[in-house]
């Protein structure tokens, strides 16, 4: 691989987007500084495909605080410490901190063996404990009661002698809310590095034994078939079947909103009510899945915004009536996974190697439920609960004139929200008007303008000098970053009608492309189109029942688009770098999910 010719701009060379030169709303520690030009950074577009509103930077701050803590301080991973992040023109760039000194690696390895060994040896017990901790955290968030600052305190403050007025709770409870997010991210990484470690160890062995094996095939051997992340979509399918069985399917008319469908059902007889009861039951917990992947405040969950699940159910009901099977071929997928594993195992040259294969694959199957299922609790359920609780604080501030709209709270960093709440707490105490209503609205308006300007910017996929060794397995698996990928990314999108990414799910199809930049647009996808998106989230699953193939800008073989596409047996190419920039809705494209090549075959009909 010739890598010398690859160059990316240095972090300090990136010019601010025109008109945003004076923008100052990210924490100082996320700004480009001394030494950054000597390091290699890449744009984490998989998790942060949009410019960051100030509040949402917590979704970078919290995970890197936790990931690094586990790698560096808790488990003492021998060869890599944590990840630094910088926010440049609203985009999150990250850089890992490797360990090179052999003596240091040796010292860390001793500790790592002891500590990670303890986790692996006690995996089931610790994982059960993890579930308890996470459920307790969910209860804690739900219990946060945003103080409403009455004119006079409740009499109980006097009769119980509590000694604390409501304005104290205002700041305290917001801090509890922020801490819940930080804590969730701590739990998130408790097992993750070890889980990925098990995968990567197996992958490395497979690549030695079978130099030409695809990551896709290895991923298929590792992956479970029934994961929690598939449940919400399965629930929609069950509800669609129930609607037909109960004879209330006529309510599910294409074009109707969720509210119209619900109102229609409520006006009907007992069987409709049985459906509504089943619907309410499915909502908790399964509708706590995010329509995004929990990294932005506007990634609402299905309970907040019923339009996605209902538009999916309208389609599913139509499918049921046409006699189309909605069930995923779970049994077939399970058998196929067993067959593939057994045949690769049989190809190994010795009993010793077959024993190693069994050990490593067994370990992958031990960690798989955590690696997949934590996403439902963490990025989906807890993250959306956190943003919703923050919204309540926003609503309180808006009522007191700080903002025109509760949503504006997300234009403030969480430390600024603390300040605004202190302002409100003080003014409530003094009886004078708060200062916030003069201070914040112009700032909010300016930041919205800046974010809009950032959204027009095309972030370079990477910055700084490329290291000689880019073989970091974690980057490869999750982000699809390889030397080859970087080379292709470093070429500006030009005339070529070919895009290269990772073949994530095998097969070749041609079809009409539909470019979808955010989750709000996914209901516009029509049957048989090819989804082209920056990155897909688990809750997009319903759309996979409609599309012919999927293409994403960002993602590796274990990314969600890849896992879901394989579940649905659709060709997928992930990690193309800039498919959403190069492909236009309406173009005929060919997706080769085996070789990872997407070809634009014809221009979109001009409209």
């Amino acid at each position: 691989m010739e890598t010398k010719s690859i160059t990316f701009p240095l972090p300090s060379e990136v010019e601010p987007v025109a008109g945003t030169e004076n923008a100052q709303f990210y924490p100082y520690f996320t700004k480009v500084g001394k030494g950054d030009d000597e390091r290699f950074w890449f744009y984490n577009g998989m998790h942060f495909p949009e410019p960051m509103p100030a509040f949402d930077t917590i979704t970078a701050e919290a995970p890197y605080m936790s990931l690094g803590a586990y790698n560096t301080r808790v488990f003492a991973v021998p060869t890599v410490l944590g990840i630094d992040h910088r926010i440049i023109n609203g985009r999150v760039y990250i850089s890992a901190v490797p360990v090179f000194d052999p003596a240091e690696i040796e010292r860390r390895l001793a500790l790592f063996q002891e500590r990670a060994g303890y986790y692996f040896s006690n995996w089931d017990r610790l994982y059960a404990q993890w579930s308890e901790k996470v459920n307790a955290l969910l209860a804690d968030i739900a219990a946060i009661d945003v103080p409403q600052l009455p004119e006079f305190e409740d009499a109980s403050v006097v009769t119980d002698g509590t000694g604390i007025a409501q304005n104290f709770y205002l700041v305290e409870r917001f801090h509890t809310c922020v801490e819940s997010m930080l804590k969730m991210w701590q739990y998130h990484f408790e097992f993750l590095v070890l889980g990925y470690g098990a995968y990567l160890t197996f992958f490395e062995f497979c690549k030695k034994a079978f130099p030409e094996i695809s990551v896709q095939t290895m991923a298929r051997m590792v992956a479970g078939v029934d994961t929690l992340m598939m449940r919400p979509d399965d629930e929609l399918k069950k509800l669609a079947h129930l609607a037909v069985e109960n004879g209330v399917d006529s309510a599910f008319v294409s074009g109707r909103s969720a509210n119209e469908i619900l109102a229609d059902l409520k006006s009907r007889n007992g069987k409709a009510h049985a459906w509504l009861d089943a619907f309410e039951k499915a909502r908790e917990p399964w509708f706590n899945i995010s329509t995004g992947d929990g990294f932005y405040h506007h990634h609402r969950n299905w309970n907040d915004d019923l339009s996605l699940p209902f538009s999916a159910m309208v389609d599913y009901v139509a499918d049921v009536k046409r006699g189309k099977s909605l069930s995923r071929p779970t049994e077939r997928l399970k058998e196929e996974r067993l067959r593939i594993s057994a045949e690769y195992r049989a190809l190994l040259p010795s009993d010793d190697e077959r024993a190693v294969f069994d050990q490593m694959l067994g370990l992958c199957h031990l960690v798989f439920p955590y690696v997949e299922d934590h996403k439902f609790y963490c990025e989906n359920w807890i993250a959306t609960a956190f943003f919703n609780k923050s919204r309540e604080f926003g609503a309180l501030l808006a009522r007191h004139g700080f903002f025109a709209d509760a949503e504006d709270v997300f234009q403030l960093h969480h430390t600024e929200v603390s300040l605004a709440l202190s302002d409100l707490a003080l003014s409530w105490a003094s009886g004078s008007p708060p200062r916030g209503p003069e201070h914040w609205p112009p700032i909010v308006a300016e930041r919205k303008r800046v974010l809009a300007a950032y959204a027009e910017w095309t972030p370079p996929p990477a910055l700084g000098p490329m290291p000689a060794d880019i073989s970091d397995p974690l980057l490869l698996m999750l982000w699809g970053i390889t030397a080859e990928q970087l080379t292709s990314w470093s070429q500006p999108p030009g005339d070529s009608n070919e895009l290269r990414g990772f073949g994530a799910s095998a097969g070749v199809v041609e079809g009409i492309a539909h470019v979808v930049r955010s989750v709000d647009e996914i209901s516009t996808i029509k049957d048989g189109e090819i989804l082209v998106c920056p990155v897909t989230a688990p809750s997009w699953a319903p759309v996979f029942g409609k599309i012919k193939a999927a293409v994403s800008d960002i993602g590796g073989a274990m990314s969600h688009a890849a896992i879901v596409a394989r579940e649905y047996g659709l060709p997928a190419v992930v990690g193309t770098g800039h498919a959403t920039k190069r492909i236009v809705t309406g173009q005929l494209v060919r997706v080769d999910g085996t070789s990872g090549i997407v070809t634009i075959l014809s221009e979109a009909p001009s409209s």
Partner: protein
Amino acid sequence: MSASGRESEFLLWFDEIGIDDRASVGGKGASLGELRRAGIDVPPGFVVTASAFRRFASRDAGASVPAELAEAVARAYRTLCGSDDSAVVDEPVAVRSSATDEDGADASFAGLQDTYLWVRGEAAVAGALARCWASLYNDEAISYRARLGISDDAAAMGVVVQRMVNAHAAGVMFTRSPLTGDPSVIAISSSFGLGSTVVGGEVTPDEFLVDKVTGVVRRTTISRKEIRHVPNESGSGTREEAVPEDLQTQPTLDATAVARLVEIGRAIEKHYGCAQDIEWALDASGDIFILQSRPETVWSGRDRENARKAALESPKEKPFDHVFSFFGNRKT
């Protein structure tokens, strides 16, 4: 079809032989018989045995086959062409040397003896047989044996006479990667016409790399195939011709043919229990025939060497101990 009387010493049909008959019919003939036993589609044929060679062969390239044997070969040829009377037949056959020490210890011996394609008619078959025999005494073969210290008297050969496949495309298939030795893939090289262009390196063939286990075609490389070997219009023999311009960059195999080849490759490998180097042809009606299969030698040799040293990895006390080795070793 069965040889009768003492003919069976000199002529054996594919159905009568297997891999253990190498000494009497040569490596190629034995392998073709064995493949038919395994249920693989091999064009039907017979072998003129090593005994016949010892009894009748002349070292002289110009010599003809003695009448006694020529008559038996002519009868077998007519049977092979489906004719049970004495009518003149001229169905095309391949006449191929099958040396008793060929395809054995040293694969490079393959190709030192002659093969004649599109041979038509009794006389032409007898002529090709004589030329095959004589090829055991050409300069290359003699110096090759001298190098290996094999005496000329010890050398013998069977000669295969086999129905010709009218190849639309043909080529070679390895049941492990020729580049990396990966046993989980099948590599197919394919070009238009007879496989001789691929074996002889006269074209850059299309290449298909397929995952053995999943059947997924991992890489397809379609090359410009400028020439092909085809039968002479006049009758016997073959000639080189230009592939029509618009056909040159067309794929030689479609997905169905690739999948079928992989299936056959896996079956042969399973039958022999080791990786194979296979010659195949696809006829105009889409049927695939196997023309030869022998053990892959390069990588299996390296495997044996590696096995003597150490396994790739050894099982550990605890499964997660592997993770420690992985994280403890930074590649530099």
